[in-house]
């Protein structure tokens, strides 16, 4: 019985990270129609930068916050490059972000080397339902919920958030009421940077990250986003959690290396099953 709770908890924790990465995909896609391949890279940057800041002696909380701010800025930079030419087809923008993720891998090797790194997290553990749960994992869940509530409040209940949604919904009308659609695109990239950075900062203590960690994260995040049709944030959260838990259960009860395969197969099945509704969303 203990085992299941452990798998559940670690699955939910990593699922939150998938959901956060996925929400970054959703935000950028809603506003710009671009799929941002660097979502995983941004998480890795978040982890690496917080590692360095903590190693420099900065206190917990401050180091992570600064790391997230930094990834927001990096996200903004990526947006500037991906959106630099008006009228670029979204597939080309996807490949530009692919190029950016490869370039970033080079930068990460240059600055942090090739070995996986893991910053210290919150120490200790808490007892829930007779099982001992690491405080770090609890933190992940709490932060993820707070972030998602914040995103919901922002997009559905704030004027600025509605402006972003409008830019996505009808760029022509948005331009007419004075919304700077390109600026909204850049804002969405910056938000995605923050979301990716939070994901990285949260799971790096439990899962060491290196320059190659961006690919599995991006794939799982994308799979979570596909759950939400690349538009719904709440469904992305659910998708991420399901993927995380399923992966952990598979790793625990079956063969460990099939974890990624399960996530990928689930994503494929979902995309193919929903391909018509996904295509309708694209055409809008």
């Amino acid at each position, binding site marked *: 019985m203990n085992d299941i709770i452990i798998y559940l908890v670690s699955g939910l924790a990593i699922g939150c990270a998938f959901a956060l990465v996925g929400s970054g995909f959703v935000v950028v896609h809603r506003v710009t129609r671009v799929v941002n391949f660097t979502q995983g890279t941004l998480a890795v940057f978040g982890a690496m930068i917080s590692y360095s800041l903590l190693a420099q002696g900065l206190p917990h909380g401050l180091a992570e916050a600064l790391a997230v701010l930094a990834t927001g800025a990096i996200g903004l930079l990526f947006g500037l490059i991906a959106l630099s030419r008006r009228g670029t087809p979204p597939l080309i923008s996807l490949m530009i972000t692919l190029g950016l993720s490869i370039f970033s891998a080079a*930068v990460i090797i240059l600055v942090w080397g090739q070995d996986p790194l893991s910053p210290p997290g919150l120490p200790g553990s808490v007892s829930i339902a007779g099982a001992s749960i690491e405080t770090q994992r609890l933190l992940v869940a709490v932060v993820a919920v707070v972030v998602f509530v914040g995103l919901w409040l922002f997009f559905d209940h704030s004027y600025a958030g509605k402006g972003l949604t409008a830019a996505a919904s009808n760029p022509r009308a948005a331009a007419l009421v004075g919304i700077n659609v390109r600026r909204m695109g850049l804002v969405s990239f910056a938000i995605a940077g923050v979301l990716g950075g939070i994901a990285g900062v949260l799971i790096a203590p439990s899962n060491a990250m290196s320059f190659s960690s961006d690919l599995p994260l991006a794939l799982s995040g994308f799979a979570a986003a596909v759950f939400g049709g690349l538009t719904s944030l709440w469904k992305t959260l659910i998708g991420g959690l399901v993927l995380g838990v399923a992966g952990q259960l598979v790793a625990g009860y079956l063969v460990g290396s099939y974890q990624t395969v399960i996530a990928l197969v689930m994503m494929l099945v979902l995309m193919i099953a929903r391909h018509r509704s996904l295509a309708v969303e694209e055409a809008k």
Partner: protein
Amino acid sequence: MNKWMRFALIGVLAVVAAVLPLFLPDLTFYVQMVLAAVVVTGLALFMGYAGQASLGQGAFVAAGALTVAVTTVQLQWPPLLALVCAPLVAAGFAFVVGLPLLRLRGHYLAFGTLALLLIVQTLMSTIPFLGGGLGIGGIPALGVGELVISDQLGYAYLALAALAVTLLVSRNLVRSRFGRAVRALAGSESAAESAGVDVVRTKLGIFSIAAGFAGLAGGISAFFIPYVSGESFPAVVSFTYVIMAVIGGLGTLWGGVVGAVLVSLLAQVLTTVSASPGLPTTAGPILQYAAYAAVLILALIFLPRGILPSVSSALTRRRAPR
């Protein structure tokens, strides 16, 4: 450029390509470049005409390589038969997988093909018959009975022959009725559909053919480097294929060759540079990644149609005022 100039240019290139291996000390780079050109020629056709991106073409290279490895080592088949089967298995695999997969479009298909590559990699690393964690080694040399290709030069010419076959097949394909259907697809799928093109079958066809080319390249490389494992086909190489296709020019016959040659040369230059004294040993992969990426990004932003179409339209423009 007119027909005779084109023939002359191709002739010169063919001669250079055939003679070059005689002067190079180590042919690994040459063979890999030519095989990459084979893969990318197919990929450029698929991406250019079907208008879709495949980020996991390595899955089909792996299928070809694996066919050779498994049939010669585990099943003791004659090598030549194994080589012939490689593209067929890869194309068949693409066909079966493509039936559900090609319902996806745009970025969904891109991620779908990437997922396929990773699934293939995982299967290769876990299923013992496909190599398990150790891979399959000891693949015999390619040959028939007593005649065996045992040196690099032989494989270099084999690769060139494969490239020639690939280009020939592609050329005839493009000019055939099937080719017209594929080009109609590139314009607009719904328009093609109303014109009577069977969109599903056409996409499946070009996808399988591109996979076949990839499988052929994979099969040859399995003989050339007689070891195949899940790690032989990292995602980054599949991304490089895409980079080569984009830079060379999507939807053109020679774009694959141009892209493969240019990017491979770039990689070689970087390897040489990074080996110079004073630079740390990790400079190699860093410079390569950074340069590939920078070239891709710049090419996508400034030359989204690739080098070949841009150069040829520049040449056509200059001739136009006559």
